[in-house]
């Protein structure tokens, strides 16, 4: 199968998504770019295996995810980062995402097991359906749902937001309301 201009454009349009997913998975922009490049090379070399009419994005995500797990899992300790050390040492991150407001979330994501992290990212952030995520990760639907559930609970635990009372804006609003109710 030749690479038609439409397919080329679609592939190019998917690159930012692949890159965001790879950064979130690997926790490092250089590794993420290597991963995206390897994914594109693998996809272009095996373009005959892509079935026209199916979702190119899901196909590319499957390749990227498999590459991550086969080639990059060798550095398992670094990737899983149980103590959040890797996440806290990330020096080469994109400028915008280096913003303080995402520091806590990025560190928390780095502490999730890769299987939970990818499931959560695919469905909650990337917007794939549970079925598509199960297909991409080569798992059962129930497993994906369970992983997402566990990932959410773990993130809440790490970020210390297990109760609505812990949510920042609400707490602020309550404080303002309380102050306005107070006798003058």
């Amino acid at each position, binding site marked *: 199968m030749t690479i038609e201009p439409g397919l080329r454009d679609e592939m190019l349009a998917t690159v930012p*998504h692949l890159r*965001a997913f790879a950064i979130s998975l690997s926790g490092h922009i250089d590794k993420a770019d290597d991963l995206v490049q390897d994914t594109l090379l693998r996809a*272009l070399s095996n373009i005959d295996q892509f079935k026209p009419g199916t979702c190119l994005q899901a196909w590319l995500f499957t390749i990227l995810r498999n590459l991550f797990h086969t080639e990059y899992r060798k550095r398992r300790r670094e990737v899983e980062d149980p103590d959040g050390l890797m996440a806290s040492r990330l020096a080469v991150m994109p400028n915008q995402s280096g913003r303080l*407001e995402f520091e806590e*979330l990025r560190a928390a994501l780095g502490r999730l097991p890769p299987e939970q992290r990818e499931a959560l*990212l695919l469905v909650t952030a990337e917007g794939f359906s549970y079925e598509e995520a199960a297909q991409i990760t080569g798992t059962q639907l129930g497993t994906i*749902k369970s992983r997402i*559930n566990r990932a959410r609970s773990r*993130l809440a635990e790490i970020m210390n937001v*297990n109760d609505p009372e812990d949510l920042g804006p609400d707490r602020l609003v309550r404080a303002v309301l309380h102050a306005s109710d107070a006798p003058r």
Partner: protein
Amino acid sequence: MVRGTERTVLTALARDFARRFISSGTQDADACVSAGDVLPTLDRDVQAHIGERLRCYYADLLTEPVPPTFAALIDRFTRKERRS
């Protein structure tokens, strides 16, 4: 030993319980039941808050400028294929 019919009834009861009393939503409840898991009691507002922050973080990553190397790689490969 739990037999087939008993297992089905127990699963249905567990799913019903999850839907009624656990605020994490029907799909998650189904997932927990199907996985034979302990149901986490994560509040719906907390879930929404985490989801929202995650989407903001991810949207931020999506706006990052993409290095031109990827487009060049695809074009190089496409040209090579046309020539062959």
